[in-house]
């Protein structure tokens, strides 16, 4: 366990535990406490990272860049969701204060997962995160949300079993499970089988193609801010992070031919299924779910190359995807709250009534589709270059075509939902409350800035491969 970031996981845990005792009387204190803890964590991490990004001299940089970046993303998305949900349901305060403590616990679990250095700790914190998210999904108390939660519970269960099988096989080869011993002692056939079992487990957990059945239902059914939280960060940290870690272990051992072939196939499958699935969707959130399957596919494609550039691109795309998926889902939450429906047929010409929401989601959409100035473009380009350099040219070409498909279905959606003619039902729709827009606008600004100043971000990201 890397202990120099321990505070990032312990403080939210303590504040979560403190919430039931402090906020006996009013809910305001809970909200303030939750926001403050996350804000302070974000500022702390943000300061460290920006300090290096802006100054661009990495001489005194001793931390593990990958973990730091992940913690920054966790806190960013966490704060956005908490801030959003404090103002989301003000009228009939459905969220109990345990909602905020659950989010804080899941943030601390994610931070400690990112900091863990062996497989079994990884497993425990993954279980903690999924348990928290079971409960969080049901917080909108509707039929859909409970259905989503049950589906999430049962459909991602085989993941933990497979991971335990993987760990037990690992025990045959190594006394302890931490990454460095595995990485530097000989990697024989047994380790490869064990790691592949763990990879399959995490694939199920992160909703990649053949196991993607739970993703659309969960994101559509669950409580809107939570679906943003889930899509934004939980499935990433609880799923793909581990696969990137394993690829870091395996990436210069010769034994990865079969695993990389499998992962490439899985990545491509999920890119295509996501793209095609999203084309004909009626529901806004379900379409976003399919698009996140497709983007996760891209990350898997990048890791599957088992090359430094691949990992670099995967991490950058993971962070990007976290940002613009959070924006999109939070916007869908606003749309749902103001217009009462997320069915794309009924939503027309929203841009006139809800300009901020529309424009931020347009920025996020363009970044997802990989339009040049924005950050999504850089990560997509890097993925395709990584694929090309690692020799599997066909996958690179198909990835390129699929990104055109992504642009296609986003354009269709955009024209229909935001820029069409204002449908008569929406005439009295008002713009979302300003507080709901703050997180979305800040994240869009981050998207634009990281897109434009990519060269600075590049130097920071380079530290990950070092």
């Amino acid at each position, binding site marked *: 366990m890397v202990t120099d970031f321990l505070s990032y996981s312990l403080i939210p845990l303590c504040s979560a535990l403190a919430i039931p005792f402090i906020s006996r009387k009013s809910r305001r204190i809970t909200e303030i406490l939750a926001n403050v803890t996350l804000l302070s964590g974000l500022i702390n991490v943000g300061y460290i990272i920006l300090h290096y990004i802006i100054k661009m001299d990495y001489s005194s940089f001793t931390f593990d860049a990958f973990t730091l970046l992940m913690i920054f993303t966790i806190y960013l998305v966490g704060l956005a969701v908490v801030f959003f949900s404090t103002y989301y349901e003000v009228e009939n305060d459905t969220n109990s204060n345990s909602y905020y403590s659950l989010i804080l616990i899941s943030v601390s679990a994610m931070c400690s997962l990112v900091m863990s250095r062996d497989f079994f700790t990884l497993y425990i914190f993954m279980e903690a995160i999924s348990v928290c998210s079971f409960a969080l999904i049901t917080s909108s108390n509707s039929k859909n949300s409970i259905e989503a939660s*049950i*589906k999430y519970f*049962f*459909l991602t269960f*085989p993941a933990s079993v*497979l991971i335990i099988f993987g760990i037990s096989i690992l025990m045959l080869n190594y006394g302890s499970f931490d990454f460095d011993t595995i990485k530097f002692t000989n990697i024989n*056939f047994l380790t*490869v*089988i064990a790691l*592949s*079992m763990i990879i*399959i487990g995490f694939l*199920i957990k992160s909703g990649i193609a*053949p*196991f993607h*059945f*739970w993703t*659309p*239902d969960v994101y559509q059914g669950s409580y809107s801010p939570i679906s943003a939280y889930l899509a934004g960060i939980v499935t990433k940290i609880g799923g793909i992070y581990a696969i990137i870690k394993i690829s870091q272990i395996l990436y210069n051992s010769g*034994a990865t*031919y*079969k*695993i990389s072939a*499998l992962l490439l196939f899985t990545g491509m499958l999920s890119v295509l*299924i996501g793209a*095609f*699935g*999203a*084309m*004909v*969707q009626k529901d806004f959130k379900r379409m976003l779910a399919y698009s996140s399957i497709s983007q996760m596919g891209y990350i898997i494609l990048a890791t599957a190359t088992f090359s430094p550039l691949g990992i670099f691109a995967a991490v950058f795309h993971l962070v990007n995807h976290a940002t613009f998926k959070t924006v999109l889902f939070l916007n869908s939450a606003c749309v749902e709250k103001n217009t009462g429906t997320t069915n794309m047929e009924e939503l027309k010409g929203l841009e006139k009534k809800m300009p901020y929401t529309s424009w931020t989601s347009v920025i996020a959409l363009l970044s997802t589709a990989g339009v040049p100035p924005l950050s999504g473009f850089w990560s997509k380009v890097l993925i395709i270059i990584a694929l090309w350099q690692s020799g599997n040219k066909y996958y690179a070409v198909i990835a390129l075509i699929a990104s055109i*498909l992504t642009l*296609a279905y986003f354009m269709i959606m955009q024209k229909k939902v935001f820029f069409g003619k204002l449908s008569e039902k929406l005439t009295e729709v008002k713009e979302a409350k300003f507080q709901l827009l703050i997180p979305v606008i800040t994240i869009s600004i981050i998207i634009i800035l990281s897109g434009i100043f990519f060269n600075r971000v590049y130097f920071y990201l380079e530290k990950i491969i070092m």
Partner: protein
Amino acid sequence: MNELNSNISNLVLIPLLLPLISGVLLLLISDKTKYLKEVLSFAVTGVSFAASIVILKFVLQSDNLQYHIKWLGNLSSISFRIDQLSAFLLFGVSMFSLLLSLYGISVKNRGSSKIFYFLLMLTQTAAAGSVISDNLISMLFFWESMVVLLYVFVYISGETQACKKTALKTFLINGISDIAMMLGIIIIGYISDTFLMSKISQNKLILSGWGTVAYVLLLIGALTKAGAFPFHTWIPDAALNSNAAFMAYIPAAIDKLLGIYFLARISLYIYQINSTMQIILMSIGAITILVAVMMAFIQNDYKRLLSYHAVSQTGYMILGIGTLNPVGIAGGLFHMINHASYKSCLFMTAGAVENQTQTNDISKLGGLFSRMPITAVCFIIAAAAISGIAPLNGFFSKELVYKGTIMSGYTIFFYAAEIGSILTLASFLKLGHSVFFGKTPENLKDTKEAPYSMLIPMIALAAICVIFGFGAHLPISKLISPSLMALGFVADGELSGFHFDNLFLLSLVVIIIAVSNHILGFRLSGKAYKSSDHIHYAPVLHQTYDMAEKGYFDLYEIFRKIFSSFSSLLFKIDRFFDKLIDDIPVSITLYVSDKVSKLHSGSYSLYMFFIFVFATAYLIYLGGIKW
């Protein structure tokens, strides 16, 4: 001489720029001013005519006049070089512009009359430019501008839809031949890597490999402009649909001058053409004479008959140039200017008659001699000139051409030319008899003489026919022999002068045959205008005449059919690709995406089953012993 040379040199610009500037200015003048436009254009063409005379006189004394304007950096320069031939042509072009600007006063056109004058002056500029320019590229520039002006001229000269179609036909034929000419010029530039005709003429090009290709292309350009056999079909149509002023100006005068000038340049000045090409040229000339005159003979429309004669007379000039000996060439050049004068005069008489009687159909005309005496007299003089009756200019130039053909040895062309002149005379007898003599129909009783603005140019041209006829040595010594020297041929012996040799007797025989044929026809049909029927409805000729009338031999119609089927084929191909690229991918994508979303039936057990199956499949794949 130098400073004289310098101010003479910018004198060159007058026939060129003055009409251009004044043409543009003319557009600004509003229509309401009475006669201002006519006076201005008359003055401008007069000044440019005077300038051309001064240039001619100067060039006759000294060798030639050079004038260079750098253009587009040193990429190409517009360089004018007026030698005797160019000066002669410039003189001719300016003369006819002057006469036509006078004649145009009483001609009604579509739209305001100032467009007619604007076009006239621009054509004068273009013709002058192409005549005096030494650099092939600048010549091409002026030559091509003629095409556009031609199109607009035909377009405004008639009201009917057919007029628009003719305009398009004219434009296409001339346009395509100009493109051929452009290719030829480019090839010449490639071969002799200079575009200056004077430089090329130092070492004349020979007809071999790319040389022949270039020559043929240039020949096409020249023949189309001159209106020779394969490309002549637009002239008769133009005659039907456009007014007489246009016919008198361009098809009759300017085109002939320019076409034959360029033919002379390429076949005598730039190239050293061999005997096979000579035969080809002379045969084209002969065919043009015969075909056109046969067609002319049967026409019943005043202007259409004249237009076919214009085409046939070109045959004489081509024949003359084709003989390649000084006498023939002199005959060709002299015939060029003569033809221009009497053909233009004939078209003016046609215009006058049409103006007064509002009809062109000779069957409805008759007995106009007493009512329109001056027009009738001019018609008779011009008709005599064209059919080569003794003292007039036509006879002398045809005599030279005949002498040239005999000297060149191919006497068959001589006989063809003779038959041509017989038919020419017969058709003019028919025309003259049916229009001016015989019984005047009652509705034409009160036709008065044509207005003076029409009469003066007619009289002037008739006078030129007579002067060039009796005083033939004047034009020959002043215009033709100097330009022969410019082309590098020396005329041995006396070109002009009246000598009673068998050629003169032959022309008398021609007259007798033509008159008897006319009387025979008249007796047979009883009507003057039907005097050509005995030939028209002869067994074999009848079918060919009908086919020719319907345009089967017309090159333009043939190409049009071919192209229309070709374009419909292209359209089908385009529709196919459009479907392939647009419709099919979209339908496939929608089909696949529909299938993917159907896969999610929402039932938990199906999902669970899939997950277990795929997990085990992955494990089996990964777990295989040989990793």
